[in-house]
């Protein structure tokens, strides 16, 4: 791909194919289009992997990352309506979301490389096999990254930034509620805490219980000991 527009051109056949499915008719113009879509799909990936792609590829990836970020924001906004997004979100949250998108972009690159290599080694015999191959490649790339310090750190900072931002918004709302003489979340939590304090403490529950008759003991083992029990296989 030489320009950002190529990305759209690359995706277009697949979009039409999907629309064909949704319309319930022949898939996107039939076998010729399916063939063309598959070809462009594979070529697109291959072009992303060319090391000589230079600055053009960099711009493409910047755009791809931005799209990924927008997609992530749309996803989290629909899943968690209270998730802070947009121009009013805090700087720290915005920064961490950008960092997180970069990490995801790295995973996408690795997945594309793995997928491409897999296609080269052993061409899939069906679209479904190609899809499963893509899942395998993407999951392998994700798992490789998910255990890394970079991923773990970026994710933890993202979560912490989100929570800080949400706390900031809650604080603003609480101030507003107090100004209007309305009960606040903190006051209700405080009430719950007071009610809980009226209940007997759990330790007292246990201490007050009647003594149980003696249980059969297996005996206390000598410590330390080597475990000899071997796992048993389930009966088939």
């Amino acid at each position: 791909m030489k320009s950002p527009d190529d990305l759209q051109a690359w995706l277009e056949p697949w979009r039409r194919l999907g629309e064909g499915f949704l319309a319930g008719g022949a898939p996107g113009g039939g076998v010729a289009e399916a063939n063309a879509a598959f070809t462009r799909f594979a070529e697109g990936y291959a072009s992303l992997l060319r090391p000589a792609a230079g600055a053009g590829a960099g711009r493409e990836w910047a755009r791809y990352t931005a799209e990924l970020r927008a997609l992530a924001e749309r996803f989290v906004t629909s899943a968690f309506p209270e998730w802070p997004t947009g121009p009013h979100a805090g700087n720290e949250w915005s920064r961490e979301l950008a960092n997180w998108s970069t990490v995801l972009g790295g995973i996408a690159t690795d997945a594309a490389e793995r997928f491409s290599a897999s296609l080269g080694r052993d061409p899939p015999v069906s679209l479904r096999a190609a899809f499963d191959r893509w899942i395998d490649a993407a999951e392998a790339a994700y798992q490789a990254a998910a255990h890394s310090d970079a991923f773990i750190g970026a994710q933890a900072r993202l979560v912490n930034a989100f929570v800080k931002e949400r706390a900031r918004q809650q604080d603003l709302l609480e101030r507003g509620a107090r100004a209007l003489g309305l009960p606040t979340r903190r006051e209700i939590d405080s009430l719950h805490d007071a009610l809980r304090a009226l209940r007997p403490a759990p330790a007292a529950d246990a201490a007050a219980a009647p003594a149980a008759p003696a249980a059969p003991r297996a005996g206390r083992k000598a410590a330390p000991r080597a475990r000899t029990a071997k796992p048993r296989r389930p009966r088939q």
Partner: protein
Amino acid sequence: MTALPDPAAIERELREFQRRLAAGAATLAGLPPVTLATAPRDALYVDGKATLWRYRPSSGTKAGPKLLIVFALVNRPTVLDLQPDRSLIRSLLAAGLDVYLLDWGYPDRGDRHTTLADYTLGYLHRAVLRVSAGEGPINLLGVCQGGTLSLLYASLEPERIARLVTMVTPVDFQTPDNLLSKWAQGVDVARLVETFGNVPGELLNATFLSLMPFRLTLQKYLALIDGADRPRELESFLRMEQWIFDSPDQAGAAFGEFIRWFYQENRLVKGTVSLAGRAVDLGRITMPVLNVYATADHLVPPAASRALGGLVGSRDYREFAFEAGHIGIYVSSRAAAVPAAIAEWLKGR
């Protein structure tokens, strides 16, 4: 360029896919709403949001040894009785056990300050007393996080537990393959709990799905098409989906303690857990112990469960390995082997 499949084969595949999709839609439209947890049972008592259930014995069987099941806080115990032919509870009943279940219910904001001590030395303790009914120690089966709570309880009240079964139970929370644990390390859980109050079940669900996002959010649903025109398969799938997304919110204080004490500080292994001022010592667990784990568990890796063997004081410690994942151990087509092994072990002691 990569060799392409035969174009005619692609067309056939797409048409077959479309046919299955249409058949699946028709099958779905004709299915009744799915129901879970249908084994006959009676509520012995309600304790706040929690309910203690006693299951009615299978016809022709006499109630045998008492077994109290303690499930995790993070999901619903309905997976233990997903459908009549895939039900750990029904299998235990059929094996002649007198089965009880402590159902934690759905915490709300009033439970925000509920602690692990409340759950363990309060709710669980009262359930144990009720099941025992003064007749002596009972058998305890702790599942997943419920197994961890059961270990805490059994170490503090060992005289009340005759035999302890733990199932896919995390003990060592920091084994190298525990992705969830790695992710938890840098999270400011105190601020999370302070901000959210209770932690939303949806948040936990999204976290679990993100452990294997491509398989669990894409591939699984495409694979559904394979059995979309077979009503029983579709019903089973819907039951699982209903269970997976039926996620209670987590009482804030208990959630904070669980993440900090176990995932971040690995206190169970270090022997530094204290509940309501009472030190937890797994060495006090001297009753017979059966530790059931799944060999392909991505949530509780086998090593996380098997660490128990080196920590309990019991000389009668056994393991049962089942070749499945964290959920397959309850619902796979081979899963009947698990309750059979539990019943055999309980009756043999």
